[in-house]
């Protein structure tokens, strides 16, 4: 048994520790890991729950919203008493209540080029964002700094997940630029099945744990498409694009020249 785990931890994480694929060393690795969750909404909630329960020792949470009553149908780390409270505050309180092993840092802000350097302090990032500028900023910054990302997105009854690692294709290899504003609807206007982000967020949390453990076969070069109404999963393979402006043959080395509004385009300068 690893000497780095105390008796309480050996008990708390016993179902991890008895598995060869995790074991005491793997659990110690999780306790040493730092994961940043970008977004504490529908996707971020189950991610935060399961990473905290798993004993990821350092969790960062970025979100600039406050809890609204209409969030509670799906954002399961927040409760009725949290309405009006910043989501990072509510989520951090949830984590502290669940697992005292986890240090949690809340950033009550929207991730932008001006503050994105905070991401560099983390081993793994979970993209649970709800907008394209943040999603492309996370992709670009993490690729430049060799930080793996567990990505997820949802719409009504369907979701997409993929994992972006330094040696694999990035999000721009699939979607080179964001769509024009207003051309892709969001959950606020179309609705979303409350349990849907639970399914996708758990897939993202699974990927984040695997990345932190350096175990298993992550969802690299594959986009998982989930349809809740048909209860089907489809895997779409995709490849690194040599013309990708972030991970292709002539990549950018900074996000400074990228415009993270509207279409998230990269300057040709």
């Amino acid at each position: 048994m690893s000497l780095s785990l105390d008796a309480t931890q050996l008990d708390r994480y016993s179902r991890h520790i008895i598995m060869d694929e995790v074991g005491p060393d793997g659990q110690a690795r999780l306790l040493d890991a730092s994961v940043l969750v970008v977004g504490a909404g529908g996707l971020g909630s189950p991610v935060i729950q399961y990473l905290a329960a798993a004993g990821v020792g350092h969790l960062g949470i970025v979100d600039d919203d406050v809890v609204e009553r209409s969030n509670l149908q799906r954002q399961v780390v927040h409760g009725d008493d949290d309405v009006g409270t910043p989501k990072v505050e509510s989520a951090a309180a949830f984590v502290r209540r669940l697992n005292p092993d986890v240090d949690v840092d809340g950033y009550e802000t929207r991730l932008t080029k001006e503050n994105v350097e905070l991401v560099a302090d983390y081993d793994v990032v979970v993209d649970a964002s709800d907008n394209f500028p943040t999603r492309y900023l996370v992709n670009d910054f993490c690729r430049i700094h060799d930080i793996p990302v567990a990505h997820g997105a949802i719409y009504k009854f369907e979701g997409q997940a993929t994992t972006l690692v330094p040696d694999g294709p990035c999000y721009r290899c699939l979607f080179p630029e964001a769509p024009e504003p207003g051309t892709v609807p969001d959950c606020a206007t179309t609705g979303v099945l409350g349990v849907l982000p639970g399914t996708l967020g758990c897939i993202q949390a699974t990927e984040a744990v695997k990345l932190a453990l350096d175990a298993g076969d992550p969802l690299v070069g594959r986009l998982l498409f989930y349809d809740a109404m048909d209860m089907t999963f489809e895997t779409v393979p995709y490849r690194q694009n040599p013309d990708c402006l972030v991970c292709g043959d002539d990549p950018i080395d900074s996000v400074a020249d990228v415009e993270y509004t509207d279409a998230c385009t990269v300057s040709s300068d």
Partner: protein
Amino acid sequence: MHVTVEVVGEETHDVSVDDDGTYADLVRAVDLSPHEVSVLVDGSPVPEDQPVEVDRVKVLRLIKGGAP
């Protein structure tokens, strides 16, 4: 020419396009907007203003949300 258009998560369509038809024409033919999708050929996106050169494409819709 005839092209098989597989929309991920939805139906697969057989679409006819003119010889100079573009990938954007394929997308519009299956009632989607070129703004909201990537057209994948062998796992990589193709510029949608380019003429169609293959007989099978996969169309992946870009979705936005993390459920704010």
